[in-house]
């Protein structure tokens, strides 16, 4: 994790701020500067809905080095209620209980930390509702 990059994106990571095209209405997370549907550069900030549906998931037993203390990680692709798909962790889960089609809600959890005295990084995870 790069501390300044995290700071720059803190709003996105805590509130799921994406973008919406003012011309065609397409919505995006992560936010974009150019609309992929119509090519417009006239976009505004848009907060994503906090509920959605699991469209795929996996239990990851060998996460990357920044997350090595948090194994296993339950990772999912979530289709939010506005149709935007987000990648995120399922919080408080066991893989046995996760299913495609389950409803989830975004919540704020600890992602990782820079050692014992370093920064703690918080951001969205999804919990089953």
């Amino acid at each position, binding site marked *: 994790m790069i501390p300044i*990059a995290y700071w720059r994106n803190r709003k996105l990571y805590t509130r799921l701020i994406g973008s919406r095209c003012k011309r065609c209405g397409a919505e995006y997370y992560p936010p974009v500067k150019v609309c992929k549907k119509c090519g417009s550069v006239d976009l505004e900030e848009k907060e994503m809905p906090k509920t959605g549906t699991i469209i*795929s998931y*996996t239990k*990851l*037993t*060998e996460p990357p080095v920044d997350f090595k203390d948090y194994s296993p*990680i339950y990772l999912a692709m979530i289709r939010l209620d506005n149709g935007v798909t*987000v990648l995120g962790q399922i919080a408080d889960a066991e893989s046995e209980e996760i299913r*495609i089609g389950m409803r989830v809600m975004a919540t704020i959890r600890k992602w*990782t930390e820079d050692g014992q005295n370093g920064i703690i990084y918080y951001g969205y995870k999804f919990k089953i509702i």
Partner: protein
Amino acid sequence: MSKVYIKSAGLIPVGEHWNKSLTDLMVEASLNALKGQDGVKIDRIVVGNMMSGYLNNQEHLGALLASALGMKGIEALKVEAACGSGGMAVHEGYISVKSGDYENVLVVGVEKMKDADTQVLTKALAMAESADFTQVVGASFISLNALLMRMYMNKYNVQEEFLDYFPVIAHKNAVTAAHSQFKKAFTLEDVKRSPYLAEPIRLLSSAPSSDGAAALLLSSKPSDVEILASEVSTNELMISQRENPLKFEATEKAFKKAVEKAEINPSSVDFLEIHDAFPIVAALSLEAMGYSAEGRAGFDAANGKYNLDGDLPILTFGGLKARGHPVGGTGVYQIVEAYMQLTGTAGKNQVQGAKLGVTQNVGGVDTTSVVHILRKVS
């Protein structure tokens, strides 16, 4: 515009080269490719590599290799497209020869992975997707492929075991390949007994980490093998941003462009070297190129279509899974292997009467796809 030929090729065995450096790997593969080419003046060097900066504290591989080969002064550069770096290097070499500005170009693909700790390597491979939105949530590269595999199994109602025929085919072919990392065949039962790394992807269904380098001398002077087409396409960087993540659009487009440029009928292809990093990648690649119907690639594999003695042999020396996957080297290995098939030097792995071959090398999860079509010059 010049035509582009493969004048010679060289490689080193894929594996664990503890006593060789990144530079040693590149130099050795280059010298193997340049054996017997003493009079040839090389005009350009292109190196394909993904992770040398992060894993080996080394960048500037173009100048490094030129210097190490005693060729200072020559134009040299590195190209990067994640796991597609090797294929992209061949593409860069191809367009330089085709332009007519360069007569002979040396292309080298290399990766030195075994020096790195597994978790560091896992982080490095995840750099194929977004730092800000993929890596921050703890995703690894393999987990992205696992998400697609689960989605595929759910959509087409396919069992895991049908997809796991791909590693079985790969390992069977690698047994007799002199340069392969694993010379051990295994059964579907062996795959099923191995642990999950990211459900539903298992240890024995994942490509390994490897050290390796392969090299090609491309030339505008006619030779035994011609590169009929070299095409590249890209997809959305992140799988979560794709309308249909189960469609490998980059591979579909690159393959379609290549078939048109080469003016071939896809059904006349004698063998395919595909990017089988994971079984789901093999399946979606074959479906994107139209060789299997959607949702059916695993069944075709189970029915023997893709065996070395089947209708359309794939992974003829073991592919990424069993020949090994030195990431930035892989795309060049594929083309060296196609060269061996087309020059009748594939030994026990020879596809009889091979005249036309296709290679497909992807970076990320089909984020970049590089397709080459090669023909034996008669």
